């Protein structure tokens, strides 16, 4: 399955790339098999994600999922973010072949980990 135009656009023009200096939820996940990495930093205030940034290393789907996720998160509530699914991330980049869907799984894991970090406090 060829990559979609929206997928390629996320690669060429990554949204919300970088790290937030004043983040209060930071998480990084690594795919133990292929070594792909995704780091999320979120600034959460009053149960709302005010800002979200990502950094990613790995295959193209990992980069695109990171960019799409960071974009989707900004402005959403923590509850909405918790409910986000792998499929929603996949849809946001115009679909992924089944062999590449692990990239979206990595994104959701990083998100859950970041949100748990806030909940733990």
């Amino acid at each position, binding site marked *: 399955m060829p990559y979609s135009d929206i997928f390629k656009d996320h690669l060429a023009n990554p949204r919300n790339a970088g790290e937030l200096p004043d983040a209060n939820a930071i998480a990084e996940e690594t795919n133990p*098999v*292929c070594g792909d990495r995704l780091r999320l930093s979120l600034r959460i205030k009053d149960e709302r994600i005010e800002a979200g940034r990502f950094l990613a*290393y790995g295959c193209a789907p990992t980069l695109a999922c990171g960019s799409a996720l960071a974009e989707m998160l900004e402005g959403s509530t923590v509850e909405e973010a918790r409910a986000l699914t792998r499929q929603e991330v996949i849809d946001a980049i115009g679909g992924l072949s089944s062999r590449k869907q692990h990239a979206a799984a990595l994104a959701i894991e990083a998100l859950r980990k970041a949100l748990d970090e806030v909940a733990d406090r």
Partner: protein
Amino acid sequence: MDHSATTPIDSRVVDAMMPYLTQRFGNASSIHQFGQEARAAVDKARRQIASLISARANEIVFTSGGTEANNLAIRGVCEAAQAHGRHIITSAIEHPSVRGVLEYLEKNGWTITRLPVYDGGVVRIEDVRAAIRDDTVLISVMMANNEIGTIQPVKEIGALVRATRESGQKHLSFHTDAVQASGRIPIDVEHVRCDLLSLSAHKMYAPKGTGALFIRRGVRLFPQQIGGHQERERRAGTESVPNIVAFGKAAELAREEMDQRQEQTERLRDRFEEKVQSRIDDIVFNGDRRRRLSNVSNISFRFIEGEGLLIHLDMQGVAVSTGSACSSGTLEPSPVIKALGRDEELARGAIRFSFGKDNTDEDVDVAVEAVARAVESLRSISPLARESLST
């Protein structure tokens, strides 16, 4: 910038093949006039290809491409020689069409010795010598590598095989995959002393789906396509006359223009590498930079992965290749780059740029700009790049 993957068909090649796609449609096995016309055209192409590698015309067998030539060479020789031994020597950097056949034979009880290539990407002749056993029946080492372009010591291997045979081990053969080398460096089978040599038309400005195997007179080989008398019983199936005519013409042009093409691509490649080196930090050139094809540049970019870079470049109209493949969450970084001893990150960040006779200085400059932009963008989102800054 991806001429190692394939090349455009030269317009002179199109002109040569066109009549055989239209009026001259005969089957080269037919006795009548149409058939004889096709037969004559195939035989002419055979001579043109033979002359590119200094072989005799009857030592050339047409196939459906480089992959089939490699299959026919290895499986054909191994089947014929298995009573004398089941050991094969090869390199760690062969094309999948050799690597895959050898893995198949390994599953069927053959023993394979894969020689290392060290950081330069070149096999050492001492290693070849040390690997030869009494039951070795085949050595298959490519002439030039498809990812990094390094040229292997095939002449030394050829001499070694000759000497080993003369000292009594009569059933040892030497095959070399010259698909990337052909048309790019001069090849002389008398000089290399190989017994089998594979070629592919589409790397030489001719159409895909045609190749050839040089089989030295006297080499025993079992056919792999059975059920017809074509190619002197060595490869059954009606010849693709237009493609073969095209291949012949392309071989003739390659021979005539070899020096010019070599100089041209080398100049472009060196211009490219100089500019990339001055524009981009944290890069590593892969493969011995003196001992390689003039048209290939393989570079690892630290902190980023090749696939993202490839897509970025594609969006800017620059086509390149990576040797890595990711599926089901298992990444297989290029076995060739790994064989150089590079770490995982460098193996994942390797990109092959390969130039052709019709590329220009401007193409190179556009590509350099595109690479610089893409690398900068990908590094700006890479956690590895950030970590390197903070340490």
